[in-house]
């Protein structure tokens, strides 16, 4: 019953936003701002840029909310919009996708499980992800955390599927290295 109520509430908010009602827009912001800021934070790598992305992202949401057809999860639609907006921001910020220097690495070589996932805090993981080079970080975020497929990543970043896989593999390898260094430091 509670779920239906909240869905009904969310529908009302969305419809209010579609009619450009400021109260509804505020309600939508209150509901999703913190989650969306976390997404922006993961891609931008720092808080000031993330907050800029959040502002611009919400302006974009209110502009394009007419296009939402109440099919599928609204949060999913919102996340995708913020991810795409973050990618655009990164494209402008750094030309990180001049990836011609990367040689393709077989993805199968890196199909290993993370053994560290139960032993790290959220903030530590975020810090490690932030230490990844931009190209690795974006692919890692898209694939591992936001559930994009390699095909979608390739289309979003205008790279090949193979490059996306190799970027992910290198990101994982880099993370593993960082974690090993951290473990060694803690032992010493």
């Amino acid at each position, binding site marked *: 019953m509670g779920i239906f109520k909240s869905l009904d509430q969310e529908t009302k908010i969305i419809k209010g936003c*579609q009619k*450009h009602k*400021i109260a509804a*827009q*505020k309600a939508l*912001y209150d509901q999703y*701002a*913190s*989650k969306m*800021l*976390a997404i922006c*934070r*993961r891609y931008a790598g720092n*808080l000031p840029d*993330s*907050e800029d992305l*959040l*502002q611009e992202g*919400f*302006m974009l949401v*209110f*502009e394009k909310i*007419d296009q939402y057809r109440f099919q599928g999860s609204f949060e999913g639609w919102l996340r995708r919009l913020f991810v795409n907006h973050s990618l655009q921001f990164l494209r402008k910020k750094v030309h990180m996708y001049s990836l011609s220097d990367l040689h393709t690495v077989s993805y199968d070589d890196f199909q290993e499980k*993370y053994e560290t*996932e*139960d*032993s*790290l*805090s*959220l903030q*530590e*993981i*975020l810090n490690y992800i932030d230490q990844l080079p931009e190209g690795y970080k974006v692919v890692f975020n898209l694939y*591992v*955390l*936001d559930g994009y497929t390699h095909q979608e990543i390739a289309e979003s970043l205008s790279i090949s599927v193979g490059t996306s896989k190799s970027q992910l593999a290198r990101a994982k390898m880099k993370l593993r290295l960082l974690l090993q260094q951290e473990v060694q430091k*803690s032992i010493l």
Partner: protein
Amino acid sequence: MKQMENKSWKDMLSNHEVEPNPDLWNNIEGKLNRKNTLFFRKRYFSVAAMLIAFLGSGYLINLQLSEGDQPKVISQINTPSSTTEIPRIQSSLLPSFKEQILHSKQKLAKIKNGHGIQFAYAQSTSTPNAANIVEQSKNAESNPINEETVHQQPATIANESTGTPHQEKTLKGFLKDKESEEPSQLAENPESSEIENYWEPQVTEKTTNSNWIIASNLSLPNNGNSSNSNSVKTSLFDWENTDVPTFLPEQNLRRYTYSSRIETEIVAVKQIQGALSIVTGLHYFVENGNYQQENRTGTLNINELPGNYKYEQISIPLGLRYQLFRKTKFNSYIQSTYNLSVSQEYSNSITRTDLSDLYSKDHISLGVGLEYRFLNWIGIFAEPSFIQGIGKSNDHRTSIKTGLNIHF
């Protein structure tokens, strides 16, 4: 190191939240206020502009249509004669015309004294001059002339009546009028005979024949065949079987000329399968205009009684709509409806039988529409349609419906 409690780090990252700076909303709100104001202005102005443009264009289109389709109405006018034949005939008729008047007076006296109508008629036709008149009239290719009126009208009345007091009064009044007006004018001023009353096809002066389209499926019809100029014979007396060869059938004609028509419709369209939808709603049609009534007795006695009329009809359209294509903001469809009449109202100045001769109760219509959705919930459309009355082949009109579609 801090342990993560029963959650994978992926879930933790996915659901991770970062509390934004409270000032962020203020910045967003400031931008939104400016943008919302612009949005509302844009929306209201665009709706108003669209409405004005559509109503205006509909009005202009219909003006064009009505100008190109001026009704031709036969009307009686006074026009200087350009032929020499008619004055010549009239001059030659003048003496006999005077004699005719004298005969008519004698006839009246006889009628008063109890003589039969048939006798009066015989007297009239036996007059040599009158026979000449009729003969000359037959030979003349031009239109009938006034003198014939005086000759034929009494006979007409005499032949169809049985000599009641009312008929006597009518005949007397008629002769008195003719004696006091036309003959005296002809006798005193022969030149005035150049101005004659006769019938000729004449394009009437442009009336307010504009068709309104007020939107929301509101249309302004058009080239109605049956009602631009409608002639309705309200009675017909056939004289063919009588022994009076020179008399034409007696007719009462009414000609209807509409001055304005408005057709409005509220319909609901429900998609039933794929591109197919059903259509129903309420349709209102109103026509204002005027009519001329012409009472013909023989060829001459003509009265015109201009009057106004109003005709209203409410009907229920039932039909199907098939979507032909849809592309971004445009969609096109074909629609056919059967309009089931609910009520027909006529103004008091006309008789129901007249307009029932003109307009069918039920109609079918076929139209092709094009819609443009300039907002998500509202669209404008234009739908040229052809409307045909059931059972009356000449009751048809075209109509360009324009209006608004509200989608919900």
